[in-house]
């Protein structure tokens, strides 16, 4: 569904991504692992049009969308859950969800997707009228995911959804990602937490200094000494 070929990104003279290639097949959960500064978030930002790639191709459903504007890419079906949640603190949970459907005009579809998102995260339904800034960290993360789902994406990009969450809340997040996969959603998961990636992903790619240094099935990640060492080191 998503094919990234020889993606390169620079900020000014600094090369962030040298040569990144990977595929995300339809219906799968693919993890992108890497330490701080390895370029994980930059890959996502290039995919969603927040930064312009210097070179390479990004094909989504056969359509080359490298360098498109963010709203056009979103309409194509690629939505991002930003790092650090970034919910709109002064707005209610319901208003946050409405903004998730900012680019859409089909009221009926939006209502259906609101239902779907709230069914996935029942805690959000209870707190629909609360200001998002008053939610706990875990609830904010769920809201960020639900909000991204409101654009009706075919591929969901998640940027470190487990960061800063209590262990039991991380468990809820893992369950939610599995539920989304059951529904047939394709997911690209960026993580530092190898445990989360191994628990939900089908395959994984390890990013280091702007290159993919390892690719393989996610289930073997925790056993693979070499990967863990290079990834941690």
């Amino acid at each position, binding site marked *: 569904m998503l094919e990234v070929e020889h993606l390169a990104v620079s900020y000014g003279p600094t090369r962030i991504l040298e040569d990144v290639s990977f595929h995300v097949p339809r219906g799968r959960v693919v993890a992108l692992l890497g330490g701080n500064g390895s370029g994980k978030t930059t890959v996502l930002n290039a995919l*969603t049009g*927040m930064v312009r790639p210097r070179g390479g191709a990004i094909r989504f459903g056969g359509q080359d969308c490298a360098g498109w504007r*963010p*709203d056009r890419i*979103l*309409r194509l079906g690629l*939505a*991002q859950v*930003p*790092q*650090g949640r*970034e*919910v*709109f*603190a*002064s*707005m209610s949970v319901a*208003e946050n969800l*409405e*903004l*998730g459907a*900012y*680019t859409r005009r089909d009221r009926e579809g939006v209502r259906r997707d609101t239902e779907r998102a709230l069914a996935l995260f029942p805690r959000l339904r209870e707190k629909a009228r609360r200001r998002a*800034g008053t939610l706990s960290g875990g609830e904010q993360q769920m809201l*960020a995911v639900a*909000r*991204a789902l409101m*654009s009706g994406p075919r591929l969901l990009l998640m940027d470190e959804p487990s960061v800063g969450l209590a262990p039991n809340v991380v468990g809820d997040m893992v369950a939610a990602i599995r539920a989304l996969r059951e529904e047939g959603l394709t997911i690209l998961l960026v993580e530092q937490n190898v445990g989360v990636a191994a628990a939900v992903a089908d395959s994984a790619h390890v990013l280091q200094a702007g290159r993919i240094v390892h690719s393989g099935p996610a289930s073997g990640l925790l056993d693979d000494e070499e990967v863990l060492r290079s990834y941690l080191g």
Partner: protein
Amino acid sequence: MRQPVLLGLAGALALAVLPLVANPYLLFVGNQLAIFVILAVGLNLLVGYCGQLAFSHAALSGIGAYGTALLKVHLGLPFFLALPCGALLATAVGLAISYPALRLSGLYLSLATLAFAQFTLWVFMNWEAVTFGAGGFRVPAPSYPLIGAGLGTYYLSLALAVLLALAAASLVRSRLGRAMIAVRDGEVAAEALGINLLRTKAMAFGLSAFYAGVAGGLQALMLGYMAPESFDLFHMALMKAMIVVGGLGSIAGSVIGAGAVLFLLEGLRAFKGAQEIAFGSLLIAAVVFAPRGLAGALNRLPRWRESYLRRPARDAAP
């Protein structure tokens, strides 16, 4: 109808019958209040709701005021045309400076708009052939059907203040308003949801400039006299004080803040030097003791849900 709207309309009704009992001074204060409300609501759209700390509001209201007055003086345009033209001129200038200015953020946006404000004042003072320079000029009194000039401008200001405050309250719940608040609460998330950051900020800038222009035009009609110093940095600080004291991200707060600042301004009329000290203290007190402004206190009332208050920096997530 919602509580804040009902209270606002009650206040407007009180102002509408004020002329029956008031002396000319109170009438002037009431008129100034209506104009301050328009200024504060307009500035809050840009600073409070959209989160863009600009310092051009006083200058843009000056452009609305000079535009209105000079169209009348030089071209003989009647005020019912000159006022909207002045407001649209302010809007156009606001939009024109917004595109370069909004590529900057934070402190740099503040500095760029401050420079624009000083430049505008310089034009008012030095383009003497058109603006009559630092000495200012007289604006002929407007004429209204049935009532006198003073009363006519009073009711016009009051009507526009009510209309523009209601429009702003409904705007912030619209698609554009929500986008503005989203840009303020999280630019990255807003962009990820397909919100065009630059266009949303520019719309907020243009709208805010329109409010400033209308207020400036009304100021010209009310005072009957125009001079550059009515639009200097002190007036910018006054407007900032209105929205900070009232609450960033609240229409009700803008209205209350405008009232509070006017009350202080008029109370200290006899002590010009004390005014600036008083406003400095008021601003510091608001920032320290009520970072969400008076609207923050109103939010504690049951069933009062009007505002999208900006979170004070200290409880923002690290």
